[in-house]
């Protein structure tokens, strides 16, 4: 999951000793992984970049509390996940005004606000990603993050639990629920194809 640079601990000691520039090495080393997970959680490139910066800023401020036996990559990754969750929570109200996530109980179809075209056309035109994103927005933040970390980042249940601050079994159940909901919501689309 995380590549722990051999020099991460030495770099942290240098930073705490006053070498601010040394933190740059940590930022360069872990920026890509943080951007990847931030983008997958927020679903937005600009938000993901903001999350990366915020995560490194928080990490710098809390660097004294970082325990040397921990993995800096895991630690800063966890901070990024929390920052991303905070970001989508703050954005939630705005999202609800743009996208209607209510599901029609009779047809069991996802209602996307800008679905001018039908599902068949969306699938054929390669816009299935938009439908998946719509289905993802129907998940709770915990379910969505757990699924993303599991499915995209190949994290174990223990790693997901550590990132979300929940028990491993709860992380596993969150993945199960997420997969179940996603399949349930995307199933009508597949029938129409």
């Amino acid at each position, binding site marked *: 999951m995380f590549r722990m640079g051999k020099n991460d601990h030495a770099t942290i000691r240098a930073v705490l000793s006053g070498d601010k520039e040394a933190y740059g090495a940590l930022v360069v080393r872990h920026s*890509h992984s943080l951007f990847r997970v931030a983008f997958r959680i927020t679903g937005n490139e600009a938000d*993901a970049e903001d999350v990366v910066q915020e995560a490194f800023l928080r990490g710098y401020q809390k660097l004294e509390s970082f325990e040397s036996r921990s993995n800096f990559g895991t630690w800063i990754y966890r901070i990024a996940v929390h920052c991303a969750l905070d970001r989508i929570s703050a954005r939630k109200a705005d999202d609800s005004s743009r996208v209607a996530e209510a599901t029609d109980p009779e047809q069991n179809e996802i209602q996307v606000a800008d679905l001018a075209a039908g599902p068949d056309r969306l699938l054929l035109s390669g816009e299935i990603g938009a439908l998946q994103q719509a289905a993802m927005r129907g998940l709770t933040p915990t379910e969505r993050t757990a699924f993303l970390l599991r*499915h995209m980042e190949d994290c174990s249940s223990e790693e997901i639990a550590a990132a979300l601050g929940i028990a491993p079994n709860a992380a596993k159940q969150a993945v199960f629920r997420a997969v179940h909901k996603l399949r349930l919501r995307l199933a009508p689309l597949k029938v129409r194809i």
Partner: protein
Amino acid sequence: MKHLNEEELIEHYYGKGKENGVTGRHIEDCAECAEAYEALRSDLDEFSATQPPPRDAAYGERVWQSLAPSLPVYEAQRRSWFPAALWKGLGYAAACALLLVGGFFAGRQWEHRQTLAVNKPPQAQPRPVHPPQRVVVVVLGDHLERSERLLVELKHADAGSEEMLSPLRDEARTLLAANRICRKNASKIDDPALAPALDHLDQVLAELANHNGPWSAAELERLQHEMNADGLLFEVRVLRTRIPDHRAAIDARQNGGTI
């Protein structure tokens, strides 16, 4: 045959179920579960196609360049934070020490008061008084009576009457021994005038008992006047009058009463 549920299929898809091989063998043997797993795999594989937009190699450097100006130098922070943390820690330590010392002294005071309360005799309980022994009082009474008779005879003795003075010398020797016993036991009689009187009597008896040869008139007169035999006779008489009171007190205590 029990079919696999969705959770087991999901675990198998993400690799957990493949570790023991049981789920995989079941999927190979069970057409229904194989179909369900294929549907799950198809659904989840579609999500894998979504990839975040790529970042170039300089992305990390750009993040750092935008972040660096807003970060303070840690050394400066440590200089300003460390003394605060140190003083805070010292404050906590001092407060703990103060509480400890205060608790210690409070405990000592409390224990001291408890000890005093336990050892303090009750106010209503009278101080135990050792009553004068009845035997001492009786012997003293007899001794004073014999001493009074001797002093009276000494007062009226003539210097030339050896027949009269010789028995007085013998009596004085006898009384001298008895007087020393009475002096030792005088503390048991609650009478402040007794001890001085017995001391005075001891001097007179000693002078009388230890005189050798016949008494001259001058010697007898010196004994009677310089030794203040008259004053001693008066003291002995006064003490004798108190003896009945002492006896009454002893009798009352022995009968369970108080004076």
